[in-house]
């Protein structure tokens, strides 16, 4: 295990998270002594019963929340807050509605934190190409379809060159057809950029089709029930017997 701990890019080490009870209600323990390590370049899917704290786990990795006990680590250093090396992609895209597609992508590049990191215009053009939004640079988010907004959200996150992409049910709000297309798109972007991706989903098929490893979380207070390695060649099809078999096994674990 020691070797793996050293190599992991982000990880949670014996993390417990308890939300203080509001208005006379008892405190809610969301995560209990949870351990998880993600290796550089890996695509890890997290599934679990609804309300089990999947999104909470991502918020910890993003630095929006701090653990009650235990450590949340990026490259072996404790995470103390949000940072450009770990970008979140939200389920409902958190795009800036007053900025056009290209301005949204450029936002992170124009901040003081980014000063001296090359030409904004080149990066924006590269990101537009990467996510296939070339023709929509001047559109506002309200003019884009759901799938396009999600692409833009991914492009804005990737523009600041993070090492880890945290995706919180990024495809859940899309219709079935767009969703399948976006699954392939996320895989393509992952392969092209070689980023580490941690992504939460409630769709077991999606997890098996996309991920290197699938993390199954237990009911609240949640911990890691099992980590399943998906040793199947890509592209994977959902009716492929090996895919279907693994998906069935994982879904039986969730019941």
């Amino acid at each position, binding site marked *: 295990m020691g070797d793996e701990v050293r190599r992991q890019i982000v990880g949670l080490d014996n993390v417990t998270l308890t939300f203080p009870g509001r208005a006379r209600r008892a405190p809610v323990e969301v995560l209990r002594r949870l351990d998880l390590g993600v290796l550089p370049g890996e695509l890890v899917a997290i599934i679990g019963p609804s309300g089990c704290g999947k999104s909470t786990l991502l918020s910890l990795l993003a630095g929006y929340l701090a653990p009650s006990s235990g450590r949340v680590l990026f490259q072996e250093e404790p995470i103390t807050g949000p940072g450009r090396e770990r970008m979140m992609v939200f389920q409902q895209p958190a795009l800036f509605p007053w900025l056009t597609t290209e301005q949204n992508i450029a936002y992170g590049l124009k901040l003081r934190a*980014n000063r001296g990191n090359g030409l904004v215009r080149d990066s924006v053009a590269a990101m537009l190409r990467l996510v296939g939004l070339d023709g929509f640079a001047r559109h506002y988010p309200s003019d884009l379809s759901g799938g396009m907004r999600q692409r833009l959200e991914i492009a804005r996150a990737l523009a600041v060159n993070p090492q880890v992409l945290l995706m919180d049910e990024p495809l859940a709000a899309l219709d079935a057809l767009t969703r399948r297309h976006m699954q392939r798109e996320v895989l393509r972007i992952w392969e092209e950029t070689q980023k580490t991706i941690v992504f939460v989903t409630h769709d077991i098929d999606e997890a098996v089709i996309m991920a290197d490893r699938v993390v199954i979380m237990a009911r609240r207070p949640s911990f890691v029930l099992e980590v399943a390695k998906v040793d199947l060649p890509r592209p994977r099809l959902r009716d492929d017997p090996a895919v279907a078999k693994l998906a069935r096994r994982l879904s039986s674990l969730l019941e």
Partner: protein
Amino acid sequence: MTRPGWILRLLSPLCVLLLWELASRTGVLNPLLFPAPSRTLVDLWVLITSGYLAKALYASLFRVACGFAIAVATGVVLGAAMARIRLVSDLFDPLVELLRPISALALYPLAILWFGIGDASKIFIIALAASFPVILNTFAGVRNIDANLFRAARSLGASDFEIFKGIVLPGSLPHIFTGVRLAWGISLIVIIAAEMVGSTEGIGYMVLEAQQTFRTERVFAGIFVIGLIGFATDLGFRHLRRVLMPWYRETEN
């Protein structure tokens, strides 16, 4: 809207004016109470050429501009601070809620006592009355910004100032704009009323003086000018919104 529709829409007001003109000239309507529109127009011309209208307008609009500017500046800052800083909202919320239901015009006698009958008392009550919609709408606007926008900006590396400038202000702009428009409307109402109650110049005073000297056509001319100001500034606001917020899709009306 197509062009024929636009012309049709002009038809009904023109007919009313024409009937009014005929009725007043033939004595069906008492011309002292309902002077013919043409007489109002002639008087308006007199007001314009004599410079009297310009002087009255200048007095009124100067007061409105000062009071409105104070209301918008303090309203945006206070509303945004109340929405983002707990201490500020604890300090100011009770004050706002206590003062808001009081009609600003009810405070006007006090304002005259404190600031005299000149510009200062008018600017004071305009600033007071017009600041509430700005405060409340700015507050709602800032509070309505999706929390994930702040999170995204933080992850991207934005500083507190960059978040205020890049997220809080544009994110609340649609609401702020609504508040500002309301504030402008209130400013126009308050100035006319205040000038009618106690003043020696301004468009409200001009109308009241005309009424007291039984120059009904001048009363109508004044009302027409006041309406024109409201209409023109509303057009201005619509245009401003398209310029400031091209992304914004208005759902209401």
